[in-house]
Structure formats: C-alpha cells, structure tokens
C-alpha cells in the first residue's frame, strides 16, 4: 500500500509538471487551428488527432491539464480562506448561513451565480470567475467543519488558561488556535481539490465551465457527447483517463492521511 501511495504521489507530480511545462511540451498552441486537417486521425503530425475545427488534441490536453491542475487547488484555497475569514468575522448567524448555503445543491447554486455573469466576459476572465465562483460557492462545507473545531476549542482547558493568563486574542489565534485549525484546513483542502476537479468536469460538459478556446478537462470531455467521434478516435477518451488517474491518485493520498490521522 505504501508503494501504491508513492506511485500515486509520483504520478501526481508528473502530471502537474506536464501541465506546468505545457508551452515547452505541447507541439502547438491550444488555439492553433489547422484548417487543412479538421477531425484528423492520430498520426505523426498530430499524436491524438485534431478536433472538428482542426486543433491538436494532444496540445489542448496538456494545456487543459495546466488549467485544471492549477485552478482546482486555487479554488479550494479560496474556499478555505473565505470560510476561515467568515468564521473569524461572523459571531452570530454563522450556523444559519452555512445551513442556507448547504441547503441548495452546490451545482445549482453555481449555475445561478454563473447566469449572473455578463455575456461579454472574456475567456481568461471567465476561467478566473468560474473557479472563483466555485471557491465562493463552496465555502460552506469547510466553514461548518471549522465552526465545529472552533466550538471544541472554546471548551478546551488550554484556551481558558491562555485567556486567564491575559494573552491577547490575536496571539491566542496565531500561536495556539491556528496550529489546531491548520490540520483541519489541510484536510478540507484535500477533500475540496478532487471535488472541484469533478465539478469543473461536469460544468464543462454542460458548457458552463471554462469557455472556448481555453481548454480544460471538462470542456474536452464534451466530445464524449458524440459516440461516433469516440468510435473513430478513442484518444478522445484521454482527458477522461487523465482525470480519473488524478482522482484515483488523490483518493489514495487521502486514504493515507485518514490512516495516519
């Protein structure tokens, strides 16, 4: 099992490096169009073939890896920071607020927020907004866990002792409370990253995720809606394979954390 986890870690690092080095590895830009070769089969010129408007699938997959692998953790971080900030700032009504946010299915909350965006939003801004909205819409899960942890902490003897010793609230938060919350925040981060990767995939399939011409695993999966394309070029399944591989690696690492905790 230990070896499996090591392999999972190495695979994740390799996939992340593949995304980070996309401009050096990808033979073409993600939006370079070869109008002489639409729907080209895999070959020496295009390793995974081209899409219906003549863009290299392999290059787009590598750039998509960069976007999905970079922005899902960023959205998870945004959720954690937002949840911590709200927990710190809001003294009353936090429980009701999290209940309201958790009462709506996450994807529904997201599509409501997505519908509010102006139509003229550019692709890069749209990507940032998509993942930013994910981060904002997903704050309630970690907030609920943080609230429980803070509640436990408030009952603890060490906190009462620190208060009685006249230590300032800021110092208590920084020196005493944060080390406790940090492990909870890290655990939440590890839960949110795969959740956001999957959510982006679902939103991309629906056309509500990262917009063209920018590639993401989600919008590359849209080809799966055409079984004839899948049959003629099985490389169309490559984004799904990569996504599943990353998810399995993350799950393996997650289970390692659960065992060690």
């Amino acid at each position, binding site marked *: 099992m230990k070896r499996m986890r090591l392999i999972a870690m190495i695979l994740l690092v390799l996939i992340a490096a593949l995304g980070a080095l996309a401009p050096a590895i990808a033979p073409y830009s993600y939006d370079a169009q070869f109008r002489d070769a639409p729907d080209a089969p895999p070959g020496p010129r295009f390793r995974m073939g081209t899409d219906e408007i003549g863009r290299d699938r392999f290059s787009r997959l590598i750039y998509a890896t960069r976007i999905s692998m970079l922005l899902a953790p960023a959205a998870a971080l945004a959720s954690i920071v937002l949840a911590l900030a709200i927990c710190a700032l809001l003294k009353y009504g936090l429980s*009701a607020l999290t209940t309201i946010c958790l009462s709506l299915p996450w994807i529904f909350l997201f*599509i409501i927020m*997505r519908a509010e965006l102006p139509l003229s939003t550019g692709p890069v801004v749209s990507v940032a907004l998509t993942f930013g909205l994910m981060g904002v819409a997903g704050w309630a899960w970690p907030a609920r866990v943080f609230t429980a942890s803070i509640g436990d902490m408030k009952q603890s003897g060490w906190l009462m002792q620190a208060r009685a010793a006249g230590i300032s609230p800021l110092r208590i938060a920084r020196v005493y409370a944060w080390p406790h919350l940090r492990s909870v925040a890290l655990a939440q981060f590890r839960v949110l990253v795969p959740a956001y990767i999957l959510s982006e*995939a679902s939103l991309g399939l629906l056309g509500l995720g990262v917009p063209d011409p920018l590639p993401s695993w989600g919008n590359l*999966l849209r080809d799966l809606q055409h079984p004839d394309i899948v049959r003629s070029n099985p490389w169309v399944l490559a984004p799904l394979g990569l996504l599943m591989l990353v998810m399995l690696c993350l799950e393996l690492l997650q289970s390692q954390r659960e065992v060690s905790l």
Partner: protein
Amino acid sequence: MVVLIGGLAAAALVRFSPGFDVDENTWNPQFSAATLEAMHNTHERENSLPRFYYRYLRAALHGDLGQSDSLKQPVADLLRDRAPVTARLLGWGTLGGLLLGALFAWIAVWPRRAGLEILAVSSGGLMLAIPPAVLALAFFFEEAPLSLAVALAVFPRVFGTIRAILEDLFTSPALLAARARGVGPVSLALRYVVAPALPQWLALAGVALVLGFGFIIPIEALCDVPGIGQLAWKAALSRDLPLLCGLALIITFAVACVQTFGEIIGAKQ
C-alpha cells in the same frame, strides 16, 4: 427561515440582475425625457428589493412563481410538469445508490476478508473518480436506465458512511452476543443492524437525496431528460432569472424539508 432567506437571496439575484432596470420605453421617441425619468423613478420605487420580495413571496404563496422569460410559460406549470420525471429518476437512483452502498459496505465489513474489503473499497474509489455526467452519457448511449447511473454516482459517496455505521454495529456487544446465541442472519440484520441505526439510515437517505439532486442537473441536461435538472440548466443558459428564482425557492424548500425530517428523527432518538 432557511426557505425565506434562500428565497430572498434568489429574489435579490433577479432584482439586481443585468437588464432588470431596462425599460423598452427608453427607446420610444414619443416619450419626453421628463416622462421617461418619472417612469424610471416609479419603476425603481416599485421594485426596491423588500417590495419586490414581498410581492414575489405573496404571489408564490398563491402558487404563482412568475413567468419564465425564455419559455414564456408560468414557472409553476413548468415545475408541475417536470417534477414527476425528476422525482422518479432521483427516487430510484438514490434508493439504488443506498442499496449498492449498503451491499458493498457489507462486503467490506461482514466477511472479514482482506480481498473482499479491497474489492469493495476499490469499486467505491473507481466510481468516485468518474464524473457522474460521463457515467450518465455512457448509460444513455447504451440505452441503459439512467437511474442506475444516478445510483452509481450516489453509491461511492455514501459507501464510507454506511461502512462506518456497519463497523460500529458489527462490533457491538449486543450483536456479538446474538451471533454467539445462533440468531439467524435475517433476524440479526433487522434487529441489530437496521433497527438501532434507523435514524442514521434516514439522515443518510436525506443526504443522499440532496447529493442525487446535484447529479440530476448534468444527467438530465446531457441525456435530454425533461425534468427539473434540465429546466435549471436551460434557465442558466438562457439567463432566465425568474425561472431560476422559482427553482431556487422550490428546491430550497424540498431540501429543507428533507433535512428537517432527518433532524427530527435524530432528535427523537
């Protein structure tokens, strides 16, 4: 309270959405600038958020959730037509997911064999790695029942909790004593597994329903199922905010009912 606040948030989205303040009379050359300003002021006053929400809520209590901008039909009628389709898909899917979760959790816990445990855990992990929408597309093209896709999406998400509940129950002294007395497996399951954890099972069913609804939106949208999920997707694509607002109110109400039911059962226990 949750429904009221959820409804207020939805109404605020509609009220402050881009284009809400735009009046087609602005481009009518027959109106003078002063008239247009007076009309604009009246529109602003009449549509302040509290007034707008009060009107919306009063109408909603009478079954009027407004008119869909894109489909040009009353929102209540659209919901009434589509709710049974979603309820069937969600009901069977969630039930299937819970049964699959229970079966695999039982396989992981009861026989106490490492091979079977690894098989159950790996199956859950594998299903968790597949986006539910992709799963649904595969079922759609193979003409398999879509509720099974919902079940396969729900199953890995409830598997861990069911496994934890079963592990607690299977190590309980009462069950061990009953096994030692030679109580039959059906009686064991009913008396020592289902009955003691009934509130937990019901609460989990509520959570699974909410989870399932999250999967319903992409599944219905991609597989052309005329349910509430597809309606929500269409409303988002066409920016039909009155429809989204109505959907938010109804969905919040349904989810709050499910959660309250779970909490009441838990409190009684």
